[in-house]
């Protein structure tokens, strides 16, 4: 699960990580009140940040033509003016796709003078199954770019999970940043706090980019997590009611939310051949084989190992809501599950939805003969496939023929 920047900063703050003073808002009145507080506290500049689950906000464009999802403001009125151009509008960035995302929340925060930028992240190193704290002096840049061009500038600390991150490891990062005195001590505390956030929240990724040395108007320097991104391990959400409450359904595709209610794993794609498959690996492979034969998959859909008739019907209804879909490919390897149960579910779903699109079904496995008989005797136009390849070619041809 992904959360918004302002939510990530709330979590980080709970673990002692300093973030710029600021608050989220959803209305112009709230925006004005927050701006009053920020300027009232003596900060000369505030930043208005669109809260969507996608990067590239600063360089994004609203569908209204308004440029930039992140804006610096020098007065309360300017904050309110930017907020009115952003709230409720659709922001398109390089990560949102052309459809963009509607901005429903803004983060309004103090914008301090930035003296230097660093990068800091915690993630899982899959090679040795240990948490990895990664840091770089090249803040603001994408870490992949730094890794490719100047790998020597990346500092890495692997964490032994039996003892957690030790202070000496955080000191190595502070020293690698080239910090001294109070800033060094602040870096050690901050790095430990970021690691603790990752571990205790069951995060899959915590990324602070940039982590900044900021200078307040009185000339005092300190460290601050100016931008932050956190994604969480879905499997661990059951033990974090507070984080579950941060889920923003506005950021998820409506069909994906609908699918999750039926325990179906659905991901919408851009093609026109809908897939209904059991098993995640087979579902990915089904998308691949469609493309191999010149077609384009409309979705990933895993109905799981023990799909019921109701789930199959629900799955059909969901894939048919995608207006791009021109044909359906059902690919089931019923190892333990009864193919006849699936076949009965398919027949019921086709009748219930009044399906008119070409439907290719490849059934294999337990009780497959009975399943095929059910499909044949239904009187419906269902194209059978002998193998995955045969069925994939038939579904691609079915679209070409229309």
């Amino acid at each position, binding site marked *: 699960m992904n959360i918004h920047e302002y939510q990530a900063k709330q979590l980080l703050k709970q673990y002692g990580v300093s973030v710029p003073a600021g608050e989220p808002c959803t209305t112009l009145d709230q925006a004005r009140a927050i701006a009053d507080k920020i300027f009232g506290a003596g900060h000369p500049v505030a930043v208005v940040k669109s809260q969507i689950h996608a990067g590239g906000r600063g360089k994004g464009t609203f569908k209204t033509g308004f440029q930039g999802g992140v804006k610096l403001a020098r007065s309360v009125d300017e904050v309110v003016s930017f907020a009115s151009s952003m709230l409720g509008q659709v922001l398109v960035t390089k990560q949102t796709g052309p459809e963009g995302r509607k901005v429903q929340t803004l983060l309004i925060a103090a914008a301090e003078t930035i003296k230097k930028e660093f990068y800091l992240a915690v993630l899982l190193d899959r090679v040795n199954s240990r948490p990895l704290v990664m840091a770089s002096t090249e803040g603001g840049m994408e870490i992949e770019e730094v890794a490719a061009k100047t790998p020597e500038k990346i500092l890495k600390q692997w964490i032994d999970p039996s003892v957690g991150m030790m202070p000496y490891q955080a000191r190595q990062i502070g020293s690698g940043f080239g910090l001294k005195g109070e800033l060094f001590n602040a870096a050690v505390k901050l790095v430990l706090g970021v690691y603790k956030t990752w571990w205790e929240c069951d995060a899959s990724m915590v990324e602070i980019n940039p982590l900044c040395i900021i200078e307040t108007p009185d000339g005092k320097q300190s460290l601050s997590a100016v931008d932050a991104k956190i994604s969480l391990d879905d499997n661990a959400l059951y033990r974090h009611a507070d984080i579950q409450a941060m889920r923003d359904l506005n950021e998820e595709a409506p069909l994906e939310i609908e699918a999750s209610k039926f325990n179906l794993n659905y991901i919408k794609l851009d093609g026109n051949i809908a897939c209904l498959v059991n098993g995640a690996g087979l579902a990915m492979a089904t998308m691949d084989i469609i493309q191999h034969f010149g077609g384009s998959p409309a979705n990933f859909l895993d109905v799981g190992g023990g799909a019921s008739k109701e789930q199959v019907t629900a799955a059909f209804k969901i894939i048919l809501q995608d207006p791009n879909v021109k044909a359906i490919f059902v690919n089931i390897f019923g190892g333990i599950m009864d193919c006849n149960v699936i076949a009965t579910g398919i027949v019921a779903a086709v009748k219930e939805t009044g399906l008119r699109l070409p439907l290719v079904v490849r059934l294999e*496995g337990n009780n497959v003969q009975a399943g095929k008989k059910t499909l044949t005797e239904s009187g419906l136009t269902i194209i059978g496939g002998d193998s995955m390849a045969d069925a994939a070619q038939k579904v691609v041809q079915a679209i070409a023929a229309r």
Partner: protein
Amino acid sequence: MSILVQPDTRVLVQGITGSFGARHAQLSIDYGSRIVAGVTPGKGGQWFEHNGNKVPIFDTVPEAIRQTGATTSAVFVPPPFAADAILEGVNADLELVVAITEGIPVRDMIQVKRAMEGKKTRLIGPNCPGIVTPGPGKDSFGGCRIGIAPGYIHKKGNVGVVSRSGTLTYEAVWQLTCRGVGQSTCVGIGGDPVNGTTHLDVIKLFNDDPETQGIIMIGEIGGSAEEEAAEWIKQHGKKPVAGFIAGATAPPGRRMGHAGAIVSGGKGTAAAKIAAFKEAGIGVAPTPSEMADTLLRMMR
């Protein structure tokens, strides 16, 4: 021989009284596997009965081992209790623990892996279909089936199969069986980002197993385990290996069903894995329909 488990392997099932564990314990018994004990805390002293077989249930793994000589465990307990169940088997010095459970938090598995360092137990999974060593009977009856794979699709023979995905394993096995080619052992290592046994671990075992003459390795997007296995095969592989990587069409940054199936920061792409396979002389099946044929062409 075969790898990891043989038809006479004595298996205990942790979570045998849950509906999932019970169903698959029954199917394993029907397949002729030696399910010798069940473990469900609080239900020690009861019996698990199926088709005239009576399997004793114990409160703890060590007690089950003492009474029945079990060497291997299948873990079916729900995610919040799975790490505890795995470590109970590890600390009782089982040879093998096969964790079927899907949905264990990554943090729990990080701790399990750390706690397993220096222990003799091998862990397969979690979030995996398990292991099958096919038997000599009809529909491979009489083999060792640990987990949730359909037994009847197998055939005793000489091809080893290793995969992160359950249904793609079945697909490969069924393609082999339909062509009259049997399997030595089929291992599902699971779709999670932290797992007990990697592709490479299983490939090494197959490489040393005299009964295995060819290998099918099935991978998917995410991580770099397939690349590591390919690199080793290039140096040390003694047997033909055919492979398939699922997820070439998956959008970056999205988790494709399996927790570990994600392309992040440009890493873990299908293209990179396929390139590593080719570089290592692994036959890459152009479609998932041709996994068996690709290997059989190489073995001819």
